[in-house]
């Protein structure tokens, strides 16, 4: 069946299109070249005047796995309130898998990625992702606090062995990328160390966080994984942590590095409140280094829940929990998790400044190919707040008006009021489609050229950008219409994206021995078989290209 999307304004930055009117043709789930005047499309959508982009891609959103379920359990009140409303699951911080898929699709997203999948919890994460309808998914594997890796590094293992370990783990857990969370810190916390400096050796494995970070960044490069090492950095949330952030950038010494939710890592210690914005310094570092990319992790005001693998940081936050309950777990010689409900208040100085810091980062970082729109769902805010965030980026007046409603001391502590930049539609399309696809190595997504998978979103161009991005007119997934006028009209299963880097299998016998000695689990049972993934239907493999990145 041939479908024609006629006359829309096409925003396709990957192929140099910035709003020019054009037609798109879909066949067998992909975009095809214009078949010429002889072709008779079976279906035509008249998109005159409307904005067309590829389906959006969220590169960092906690949507599946143990800590997401723990968050749901702690947020009982929001689910009870939702049960009273007829369409209650709007704006939940901890939506069900069904609501997650539906809400993303209704906002024009066709893929979202779980950024903190623990090796021991990977099977759970994949089982859960299989129940998220409508969108593609995948997981980034948390490494850097696993005792086996730290043992390897402390024993002086060379780069090749480390790469083999990482390669094995990515294959066995069906992951797409490598994630490092507070390298060394979560492990140190298991030994009652509450802070760990970048150059301090850990309490059991005599290895520094810097060494772990550089080893992982090196392994990612050696293996040729498309996505850079995805780093949740040191001292999250601590005033003055910009130093550690800049240290991390320096540590990888030109290797690619992605700094996630960098807003939480862009704090200075200046001024009367001993808490200040260091966004300008971070932006400068990012602007000057093409090997560095970031996603913001913007906070938005309201009740949410923070959930991460970083037990060291979360223990520090536990006292601020709202409501007053929280969960910490030490997990399987892997990592951990900390789940702390939290409410960001616009009248609280710290939260207001966090909000401003995130926006400063968006507006100061120049290259829309290296900055990504995230709220670190649900840590900064539920992902359903993205349309409001887009409005703040595209509409300076709205931004200033919102700022005026916040804590009165805010203007003296931020340059946000002076920043006039407004994101264009093309830049939004880059930041939310083209760039995420490119940085994840999803070569046939995020763009609208022939051969691309037909994940397409159509918007009515509205001056109120929040309304525009909240309710796309049409959303296509794999060429099928799934959303019309904000309503889900068809259900389908997405696919799971993975990489399978090559590695020397000799590492497996060492790993099997360690598993037998320590983990109470056979290595063969740790591995996830292909037919376990979405009932066998679901893998999309992306090529690793050693030396290419």
């Amino acid at each position, binding site marked *: 069946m041939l479908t024609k999307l006629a006359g829309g304004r096409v925003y396709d930055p990957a192929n140099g299109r910035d709003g020019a009117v054009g037609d798109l043709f879909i066949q067998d789930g992909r975009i095809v070249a214009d078949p010429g005047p002889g072709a008779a499309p079976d279906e035509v959508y008249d998109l005159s005047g409307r904005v067309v982009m590829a389906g959006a891609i969220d590169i960092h959103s906690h949507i599946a796995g143990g800590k997401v379920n723990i968050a749901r359990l702690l947020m009982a009140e929001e689910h009870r309130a939702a049960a009273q409303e007829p369409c209650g699951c709007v704006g939940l911080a901890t939506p069900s898998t069904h609501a997650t898929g539906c809400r993303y699709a209704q906002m024009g997203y066709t893929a979202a990625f779980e950024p903190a999948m623990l090796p021991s919890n990977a099977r759970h994460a994949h089982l859960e992702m299989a129940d998220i309808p409508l969108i593609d998914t995948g997981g980034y594997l948390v490494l850097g606090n696993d005792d086996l890796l730290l043992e390897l590094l402390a024993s002086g293992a060379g780069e090749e062995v480390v790469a083999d370990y990482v390669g094995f783990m990515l294959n066995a857990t069906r992951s797409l990328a490598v994630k490092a969370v507070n390298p060394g810190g979560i492990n140190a916390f298991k030994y009652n160390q509450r802070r760990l400096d970048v150059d301090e050796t850990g309490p059991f494995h005599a290895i520094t966080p810097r060494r772990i970070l550089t080893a992982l960044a090196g392994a990612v490069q050696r293996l040729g994984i498309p996505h850079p090492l995805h780093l949740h950095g040191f001292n999250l949330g601590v005033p003055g942590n910009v130093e550690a952030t800049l240290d991390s950038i320096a540590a990888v010494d030109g290797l690619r590095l992605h700094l996630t939710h960098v807003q939480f890592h862009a704090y200075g210690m200046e001024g009367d409140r001993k808490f200040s914005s260091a966004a300008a310094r971070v932006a400068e570092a990012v602007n000057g280094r093409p090997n560095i990319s970031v996603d913001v992790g913007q906070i938005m005001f309201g009740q949410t829940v923070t959930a991460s693998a970083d037990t060291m940081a979360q223990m520090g936050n536990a006292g601020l929990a709202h409501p007053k309950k929280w969960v910490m777990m030490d997990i*399987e010689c892997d990592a951990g998790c900390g789940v702390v409900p939290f409410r960001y208040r616009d009248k609280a100085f710290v939260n207001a400044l966090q909000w401003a810091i995130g926006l400063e980062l968006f507006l100061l970082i120049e290259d829309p190919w290296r900055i990504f729109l995230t709220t670190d769902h649900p840590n900064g805010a539920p992902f359903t707040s993205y349309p409001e965030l887009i409005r703040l980026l595209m509409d300076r007046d709205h931004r200033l008006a919102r700022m005026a409603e916040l804590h009165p001391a805010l203007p003296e502590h931020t340059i946000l009021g002076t920043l006039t930049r407004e994101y264009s539609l093309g830049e939004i399309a880059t930041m939310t489609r083209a760039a995420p696809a490119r940085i994840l190595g999803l070569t046939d997504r995020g763009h609208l050229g022939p051969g691309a998978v037909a994940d397409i979103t159509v918007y009515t161009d509205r001056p109120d950008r929040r309304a525009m991005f909240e309710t796309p007119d049409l959303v296509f997934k794999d060429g099928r219409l799934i959303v019309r006028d904000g309503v889900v009209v068809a259900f389908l299963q997405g696919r799971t994206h993975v990489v399978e880097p090559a590695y020397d299998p000799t590492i497996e016998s060492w790993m099997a021995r360690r598993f037998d000695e320590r983990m109470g689990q056979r290595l063969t049972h740790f591995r996830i078989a292909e037919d376990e993934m979405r009932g066998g239907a679901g893998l999309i493999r992306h090529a690793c290209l050693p030396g290419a990145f």
Partner: protein
Amino acid sequence: MASERPTPPVARPVVHRDVVCPFCGLGCDDLTVEEEPPTTLAVRSTDCPVACERFSRTPPAEPPRVAGVPVPLMEAVEAAAALLGAAQAPLVAGLGTDVDGARAALSLAERLGAVIDHALSDGLYRNLAVLQRTGWIATTLAELRNRCDLLLVAGPDPAALHPRLFERWVAPAPALQTPPSREVVFLCGEPLDATRTALSGLPVTVLVGDPAKIGDAAAVLAAALADPSRASGAAGIAARDIAALAERLRKARYAVVAWAAAAFASPHADLTVERLVRLVRDANRHTRCAGLPLAGHDNVVGVNQVCTWRFGVPLRTSLAGGMPLHDPHRFAWARYAEVADAVVWVSAFRPEVPAFPAGQTVIALAPPGTAMADEPAVFIPVGTPGIDHAAHIFRSDTVVALRARRLIDRGLPDAATVLKAIAAALPQEVPAC
């Protein structure tokens, strides 16, 4: 004479290695199980009573029954669908099944607007209520095995429910502590003989106390941490013993407090768990300490995970009117069974179906040979996960999911297939909620 007949060839036993045991929640995956074809199984590698009993119970398949009369599967499915289509207050419970079975049961429940609960949710909620209400600090089995240097076992010996706990997770020396020392203290509970044997290499202390008052002991121990010299006694344990334990807890490197709440006597055992959780939290001011709630028979942990991700809320939820409404009081299966007018009971791990109020319409999915007090309206024998079909199950500590494999083929359908068929056979007039 009988001796003239040729003897039949002896079937050689098939040996299955590294079998995953899906039954109690410890997720032991090192079993050797011998199969004497066609369907007799015997566990050879361990004398764990749960594994030995469950794997050896593989009676041959039998046909489904409607009102006690054997019928083909599709007829039973259709009868079940007809009964459920007419129900005004359906209950889908038991839920003793694997992840796929749970998914199918929850989908059926959603279609029906039913209430959902697991047979063992009482034990689950002793812990879950505390998690929902206050949260906790917890750990997992490999952390216990490799990092724990002081294990405090609160209440009755968990090995009664999880037999290989100490053998697999406590006896081996911690690989990630230097020096690799470990000691075990039993608080208000006596270790079983098998436990003492498993721990024979380790220092073991037993503080004898009233098992109904573990919460009091936990409370005074927590209070003593700040200043052990001012410790009080409780539960029949002397103040000086509490003081000594508080000292050791403060000095531990990685202490674990473990308990099996299902074995606690009190009907208000969640309050006891809450005090254990508080003890753990207070101990974290002085050192690292984490709790280890032990649970997980019949994949209750896994089914609760599936329910929570599917609906956003855990078990004991109603799907009436299309919106999941969670209420651990109203929607506990034993309570709702009193008012339900149709019950789907799934018990694939064990051949047990509870007695329901007289006249209750029951559709039971259980292993062949399950004895039931009253003949259900529909009985469909199903395979056992990890024996008749591959299955995903969760381990007790909620993080690790394992895949158990198929060992034999008795020609039994799995619960997921049956439940999906029932949902598909529902009359079209039953509006999906």
